């Protein structure tokens, strides 16, 4: 029986738009009605364009309308991307045949899949080129809908700069110019969203992983200096150890349920296990789960989330504002889109040293606040 009560994750169309919208220099057109346009326009906060289809366009054809918008955008942007939506895809408009010149075209109607599928489909059309002369590495896995997108970019750049490594291109929160001269090596910020451009040198998701990735870079690039990283790593790890030890002197280890994309969830689970000996009840994944030592389950609907929480009630929850409302009694840490009812202005990383420190800081504060509230 189908039981998709309150779908929690956006569709393929939104994923494709998120990819293109992250690249400055690309004008993104949603070929569909205003209902399909408003959602990505609202959550991505980037300029998007739309053919704003109405019923008549399906009867008489929307080709001219699309052509007109694309022609206008060609004057403003170095590249134009068209993302097809459900109904034009069903009616079988042959968009590619009547659009002149080079268009980044993705047929990713919502019914074809989820956010990640649309995102990857759009990534594969990007006019990215490896430039052998490009200095440094690419940052990969940056996507605008991610709560940690800008924080991850800043943290990765900070760590790389301290090691003497530059950033050539950011997929997909950068510019058309930089992806046209990208490096042949990439560092992952979110392995779920690898764009496929550049040889992966590893991930910055986790301090140990960051260290390994820097060591990999040492082999390929001249002058990589890990001194600053090692120094900071040592002091931050010690601070996390001390804070967690202090917490555990007075409190039991948390029982935690984590909801997000798989890679982030698995990372958080490993860290909570390592530093707080947390019992991880489930990794509720919005996308396809990979291999993990923890129990994984799909969590793309509120009914699924509620079931997972009810089976094994957590006292700590990492997730979105959906999960927060579904289990208000648990301590809560914002961890994935969407995050409503909370002001978030600062760029927060999840990767690298500061991402790790931020995660543990948020977890400890949430647990302490929650236990304080429960006791008063």
């Amino acid at each position, binding site marked *: 029986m189908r039981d998709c009560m309150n779908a929690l994750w956006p569709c393929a*169309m939104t994923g494709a738009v998120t990819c293109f919208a992250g690249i400055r220099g690309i004008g993104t057109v949603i070929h569909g009605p205003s*209902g399909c346009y408003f959602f990505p326009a609202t959550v991505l906060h980037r300029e998007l364009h739309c053919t704003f*289809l109405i019923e008549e366009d399906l009867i008489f054809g929307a080709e001219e309308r699309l052509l007109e918008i694309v022609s206008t955008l060609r004057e403003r942007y170095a590249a134009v991307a068209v993302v097809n939506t459900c109904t034009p895809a069903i009616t079988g408009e042959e968009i590619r045949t009547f659009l002149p010149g080079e268009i980044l075209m993705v047929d990713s109607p919502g*019914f074809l899949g989820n956010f990640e599928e649309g995102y990857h489909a759009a990534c594969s059309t990007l006019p990215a080129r490896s430039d052998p002369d490009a200095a440094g590495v690419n940052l990969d896995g940056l996507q605008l809908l991610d709560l940690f997108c800008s924080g991850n970019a800043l943290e990765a750049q900070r760590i790389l700069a301290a090691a003497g490594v530059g950033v050539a291109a950011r997929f997909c929160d950068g510019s058309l110019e930089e992806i046209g001269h990208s490096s042949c090596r990439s560092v992952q910020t979110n392995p779920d969203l690898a764009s496929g451009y550049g040889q992966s040198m590893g991930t910055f998701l986790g301090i140990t992983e960051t260290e390994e990735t820097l060591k990999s870079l040492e082999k390929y690039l001249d002058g990589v200096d890990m001194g600053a990283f090692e120094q900071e790593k040592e002091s931050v790890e010690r601070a996390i150890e001390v804070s967690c030890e202090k917490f555990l002197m007075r409190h039991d280890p948390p029982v935690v349920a984590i909801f997000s994309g798989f890679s982030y969830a698995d990372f958080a689970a490993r860290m909570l296990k390592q530093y707080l000996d947390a019992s991880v009840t489930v990794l509720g994944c919005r996308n396809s789960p990979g291999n993990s030592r923890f129990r994984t389950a799909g969590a793309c609907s*509120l009914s699924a989330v509620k079931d997972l929480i009810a089976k094994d009630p957590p006292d700590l929850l990492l997730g979105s504002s959906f999960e927060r409302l579904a289990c*208000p009694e648990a301590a809560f840490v914002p961890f994935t889109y969407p995050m409503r009812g909370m002001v978030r202005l600062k760029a927060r990383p999840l990767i690298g040293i500061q991402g790790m420190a931020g995660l543990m800081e948020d977890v400890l504060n949430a647990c302490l606040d929650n236990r304080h509230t429960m006791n008063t």
Partner: protein
Amino acid sequence: MISSRTEGCTLTGALSITTSVQDAVSVIHGPDGCAHHNFSLLHALHFDNEQLVLPSILSSSLKEQEIIFGGEHALEDAITGAMGGNPGAIFVLTSCVAAAIGDDVSAVCNEIKGCPVILIPTGGFLGGGFSDGVRSALIALSDLCNGGYPNGMVTLVGEKNLEYEAEANYRELQRLLGLLGVKAQLRFVRNIATSDIEKIGSSSLNILRDESLADVGDALRDRFGTPYQPSFPVGFEGTLTFLSHVGDALNIESDRAVSAEMVHQEGILEHFSELRGRAVKVYHSGRTSDPFLTELLELFDLELKDRGQLLSLPDPIPVGTSGLSRMLSRWQRILHA
């Protein structure tokens, strides 16, 4: 059907109504993406309105397979799933995908027994725009009422549930109706139970949120014989007229209420007397009625100038005297700044 290209989806309009029936489930016959877009939007707006209850929106999860072979079974499955929660009613809304593949949604809904299943044939953008969805939903939901006898009370019809000021507007309506000694028996539809819908047949007067809902007012009048007031009160004079019209419709003497409100309004005009004679430039999104602006310009002797202080008229227009007072307060703050 011609609809504004940029108005938004019929689904969003209809869901803004159906999700406000708290014990009901709304089923979108479409892909999960449509359900998520709307659920996410409603979730955000509910937070703005301090309503910390998640709406119940179920999707029939149409995928490529159903696009090719038809999605009626998927809908049947979804409705069966919805019934498992024993809801007061199930509202079935159609997406543009369902409309494009031509599923016989009505036949599926008619087969279901044991729970009221109301079809709202929204059809995504193929059924018009946001306001078409609102109207379709209101008319369809009235099918849950079998009729009744006028009881002297009023029903508020079509409150804009996504509006930030919805509760403030309701309080203003309550205040004004209180001056007449009249009670609002039903908010059709805002935070009610399915069983409350039955009350709409016994309303003595329906008060529509705005004139765009005239079709709904007509439908309710034709069905239950209930007269309607075409909109919530707008403007100082409009608020007095509103009191007078509601009094007339309910055969209630309204002179005292009108006089009391006039005194209240004079106090407000005095309170904002600093605005008088100021040079302003008023920005509005184009849908604001001219009489509303004209009245303000005259009452405060405002001078429209290109280089005047930029003030904005909200859309929708503030409701009643209290709404105007809050808007004037914001204007005064800008002029002080």
